[in-house]
């Protein structure tokens, strides 16, 4: 499998490690009223789609960047790769 890194071009999947669902970017607010419930859902509840899945990959043997990869779990076809930093910023994160 080859991941087309937005900055560095096509790279072998052996250079990356997989973390999981890209929803992990949206960490709940620990001061919210229902923080306990939100963190429970954040930590334990995952969709398990047969089809396109947005997930986090870490370019460990490369530039150490986090990527959001859209991969079809039935075919391994990768349709989109973005820098996780850009995704987080577009969701209102400051770093």
């Amino acid at each position, binding site marked *: 499998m080859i991941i087309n890194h937005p*900055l*560095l*071009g096509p790279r072998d999947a052996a250079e990356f490690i997989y973390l999981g669902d890209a929803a992990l970017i949206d960490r709940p607010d620990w001061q919210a009223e229902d923080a306990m419930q939100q963190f429970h859902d954040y930590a334990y509840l995952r969709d398990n789609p047969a089809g396109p899945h947005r997930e986090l990959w870490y370019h460990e*043997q490369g530039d150490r960047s986090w990527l959001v990869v859209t991969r079809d779990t039935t075919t391994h076809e990768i349709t989109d790769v973005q820098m996780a930093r850009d995704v987080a910023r577009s969701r209102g994160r400051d770093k």
Partner: protein
Amino acid sequence: MPDYTLISTPPLAGYDKIFGTTRLHAPADLAIVSIALPLGAEDAALKAVKSAYGAALPEPGRSTLTKEGARLVRLGSDQAFVIFTHATPDAERAVATRLKGTAYTTDQTDVWTGLEITGPDSRTVLERICPVDLHRDAFAEGDAARTVMEHLGALIVRTGEDTFLLLSASSSANSFLHAVETSIRNTS
């Protein structure tokens, strides 16, 4: 206090071998200093690099050879290496002084080992162990990539027509050398 001096002993110091038309050697006195661009102050750091070295820090995946012979390698959006020849153990200070505190610098000299492979068959040797496409059209002179070779993290820079600088961890220097030597023997 006893008076003592430390003697630098790079793991592959003095290594230089010729296999047919391929030469593999460990460049002497190779110094490596990393530059991390501070979050929010990237522009000031980039400007400082340009005025200190007379060359702009290139795009990620590219490297530039400065007039004085230092190589600036951009590894990612906010990280870079300066690779140069420097015999004394104060490479980090040499770079930090020139950048005037605009970026974070760390000495990497001791943790990396360098090998330079040159010869018309260098690509044939490397394509067996390097997952990055090294075709002339895909990997131009000056291109650089951080990748894995034989499970060892490595940095490869194309420094000439048929010349590549390979860097890997000094703790596994001899395993890395063995991987490259084996590939040379397998393809010759």
